[in-house]
């Protein structure tokens, strides 16, 4: 009875203060669902992906409708580090080297300010271009293993394209080599694939997890050859 009276009073009172609408905080349950969503999204590659099993968002030029990408590889990202360091070093050259050079080269001709401005701006554009082309060359040099064949796509100096492929059944021998401090630390190496006949041999250079790659391709070759024999 008392509850009924209280309710009536509250309902008749004017609204003096209304709390602003708060943003909905995701519940723990929501977080977990987001986490599971992010793990499912991991089927896609990023710009820095160098090794991916069963990527869903990768397609290549000559891919058949019934062909699935099993392994997608690029060179290990570490191969870009020396170029990046070089780019960073030459970034600071105009700040330090040019004043020193100006002191030593006592030229009677005074260089107009416009040339210095243009030279400096161009320097940074060229550095950007150098890093961009280095990255593009790394990004588009790819190795793909599908359920039918292995593919090696190389872009040389951004102007020449080399596309090599071999059927999985043609693979005769597969091995890998790794060596050096960096390769051991970051687990990358070269995978060598020998194919039957006059087909060229494949060398996947500086790819991550070479042992896993060899295992995957060997298993796949056995499976495909087994199917062929049956």
């Amino acid at each position, binding site marked *: 009875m008392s509850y009924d009276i209280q309710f009536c009073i509250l309902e008749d009172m004017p609204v003096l203060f209304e709390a602003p609408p708060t943003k909905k905080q995701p519940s723990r349950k929501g977080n977990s669902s987001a986490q599971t969503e992010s793990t499912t999204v991991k089927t*896609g*590659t*990023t*710009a820095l992906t160098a090794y991916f099993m069963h990527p869903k*968002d*990768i*397609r*290549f*030029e000559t891919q058949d409708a019934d062909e699935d990408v099993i392994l997608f590889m690029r060179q290990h990202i570490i191969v870009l580090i020396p170029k990046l360091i070089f780019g960073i070093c030459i970034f600071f050259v105009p700040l330090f080297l040019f004043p020193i050079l100006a002191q030593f080269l006592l030229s009677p001709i005074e260089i*107009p300010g*416009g*040339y210095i*401005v*243009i030279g400096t*701006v*161009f320097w940074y*554009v*060229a550095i*950007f*271009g150098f890093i*961009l*082309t280095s*990255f*593009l060359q790394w*990004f*588009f040099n*790819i190795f793909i293993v599908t359920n039918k064949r292995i593919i090696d*796509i190389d*872009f040389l100096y*951004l*102007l020449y*394209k080399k*596309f090599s492929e071999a059927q999985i059944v043609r693979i005769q021998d597969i091995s890998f080599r790794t060596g050096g401090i960096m390769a051991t630390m970051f687990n990358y190496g070269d995978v060598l694939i020998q194919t039957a006949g006059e087909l060229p041999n494949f060398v996947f250079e500086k790819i991550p997890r070479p042992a896993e790659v060899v295992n995957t391709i060997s298993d796949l070759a056995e499976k495909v050859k087994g199917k062929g024999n049956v």
Partner: protein
Amino acid sequence: MPENAGLVIWTGIKLIVLLGLGIYIIFAGVIVRQEQLMSKVLEADSEKVLAALSWVHFGAAAVVFILALLIL
């Protein structure tokens, strides 16, 4: 006479600089075109960023050329 010689030299230098920057614009255009061709070979979502970056590079090269044309 020496003033004229200086003018001729600086005009020559300006032309060489503009020629160099023009060649760089062509190089930047080649990068854009090559990126487009490459993205046909490999279809991935992350290529949009690279395409944008190559266009930014091309734009920057063009801006430097125009700047040189105006300033020098």
